């Protein structure tokens, strides 16, 4: 009975963190897939989402508004980064890696200067506990899981059903031919970059009441997103989703029954295993 309670808790924790990770990793995967660039600064958008959510919560007293404001602000920052940094270097793969490393430090140090080295909490917007047979569980975490799942679904619809989504997939597959069919590919790149940043910013904002906002919190987000993208298969959104959930669940189970450190080791071993056994990831390069 105790063990099954623990397992349930582990799976629940894993599901929540897996869904949040899925949002973050989906953003990274989208940007890599459509633009063919590795955005090393992706984790900083997560951090910015969290810090901006803290700021708006503190200033406006409403976490709901903060949850809207954070992705909008981060989306605007991403658009500026696209226009001022990525487009001038023509999205060249190597150059964008160096440029986004620079962006990572600029954003991180700016936040350190303005926000300081503190970890600041935000009160959860909803207080309730869901009672399970073995324990009560934070209602807010379940809300996070549901919101994350809804956003993942909305992103899926955007990519598979809308004109922008079609243009994104066409641009991913052949930018020149896409241009020859009237697709403003540079705008598609900008939109993809902003969308990827906004997804991860929402994830960052959602976890502030659980984890607090801190200027270095982007590094873990980046690392885990990379793991999800690699395990899932580069460029495969479906694979990224599956891998993020897998990492979340493994992390939950191993953390509860063993230790969080071992969980990280297991996740890294998974990456190594995938790279050795199936270098294309669990889901090969392909559609979405």
């Amino acid at each position, binding site marked *: 009975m105790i063990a099954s309670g623990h397992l349930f808790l582990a799976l629940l924790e894993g599901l929540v963190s897996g869904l949040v990770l899925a949002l973050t990793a989906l953003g990274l995967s989208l940007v890599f897939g459509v633009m063919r660039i590795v955005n090393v600064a992706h984790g900083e958008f997560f951090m910015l989402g969290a810090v901006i959510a803290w700021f708006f919560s503190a200033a406006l007293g409403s976490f709901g508004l903060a949850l809207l404001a954070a992705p909008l602000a981060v989306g605007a920052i991403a658009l500026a980064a696209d226009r001022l940094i990525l487009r001038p270097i023509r999205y060249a793969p190597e150059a964008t890696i160096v440029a986004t490393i620079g962006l990572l430090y600029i954003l991180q140090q700016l936040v350190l200067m303005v926000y300081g080295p503190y970890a600041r909490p935000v009160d959860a917007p909803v207080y309730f506990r869901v009672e399970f047979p073995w324990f009560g569980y934070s209602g807010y975490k379940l809300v996070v899981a549901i919101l994350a799942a809804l956003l993942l679904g909305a992103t899926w619809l955007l990519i598979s059903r809308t*004109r922008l989504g*079609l243009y994104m*997939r*066409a641009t991913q*597959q*052949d930018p*020149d*031919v*896409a*241009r*020859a*069919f*009237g*697709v*403003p*590919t540079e705008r598609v790149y900008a939109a993809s970059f902003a969308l990827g940043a906004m997804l991860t910013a929402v994830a960052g904002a959602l976890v502030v009441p659980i984890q607090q906002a801190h200027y270095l919190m982007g590094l873990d987000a980046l690392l885990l997103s990379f793991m999800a993208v690699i395990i899932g298969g580069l460029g495969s959104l479906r694979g990224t989703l599956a891998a993020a959930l897998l990492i979340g669940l493994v992390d939950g189970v191993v953390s509860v029954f063993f230790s969080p450190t071992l969980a990280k080791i297991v996740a890294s071993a998974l990456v190594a295993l995938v790279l050795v056994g199936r270098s294309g990831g669990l889901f090969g390069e*392909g*559609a*979405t």
Partner: protein
Amino acid sequence: MLTVEGLECAYGEALVLRGVSLRLAPGQVLGLLGRNGAGKTTTLRAIMGLLRPRAGRIVLDGRDLGALRPYEIPRLGVAYVPQGRGLFPFLTVEENLRMGLLVRDGDRRRLEEIFELFPALRERLRQRAGTLSGGEQQMVATARALAADPRYLLMDEPLEGLMPLLVEALLGVIGQLRARGVGVLLVEQRIEAALRAADEVALMEVGRIRYQGTAAELANHPDVLQTYLGVRRDRRVGG
């Protein structure tokens, strides 16, 4: 009228087009022939705005295309069948056709007209384009370009690898387009078929147009083909 004047294009230092001039009228089929590397594909890419010319002008009905962004050119009614078909392989056939429709916001009725030309596609709408046979892919590539409701159609080796039956079908489609007033610029290695389809023929060699005349004229001058394409009329230009 689609006019190309003194077009020069380079890949890096290598000058690929050295002053190409062409005129394509509505309802005209202009064959652009030449050996590999003569600059035919580069000419088409430059017209589509995918390559910035070093010199020269491309004018569509009085409008200089050089001032436009690449994605604005197809919206003026210039459609493209790229070499090697250039389908979006992971999009379904329907999505590929939708890419064509969206260029000029055509509605689905346009697709019905296209299915009359290519009835086999109706059965394949849900299939990923990359999984089709070569002939079917070529049909999708042409259908996608037609979905964009072009006034001028640039086709880069649309007959490549097609069975004789499909070659005839595609030549029939080109004939129908001509009858509807669409200007077709046809780059082709299948000389025989191109000469049958074309009203006029331009022969390219090392980045220049070396000969231009009616297809009928050329048919009477096999020596010209021999000189610029290095073939006798009854053979294909070497791969």
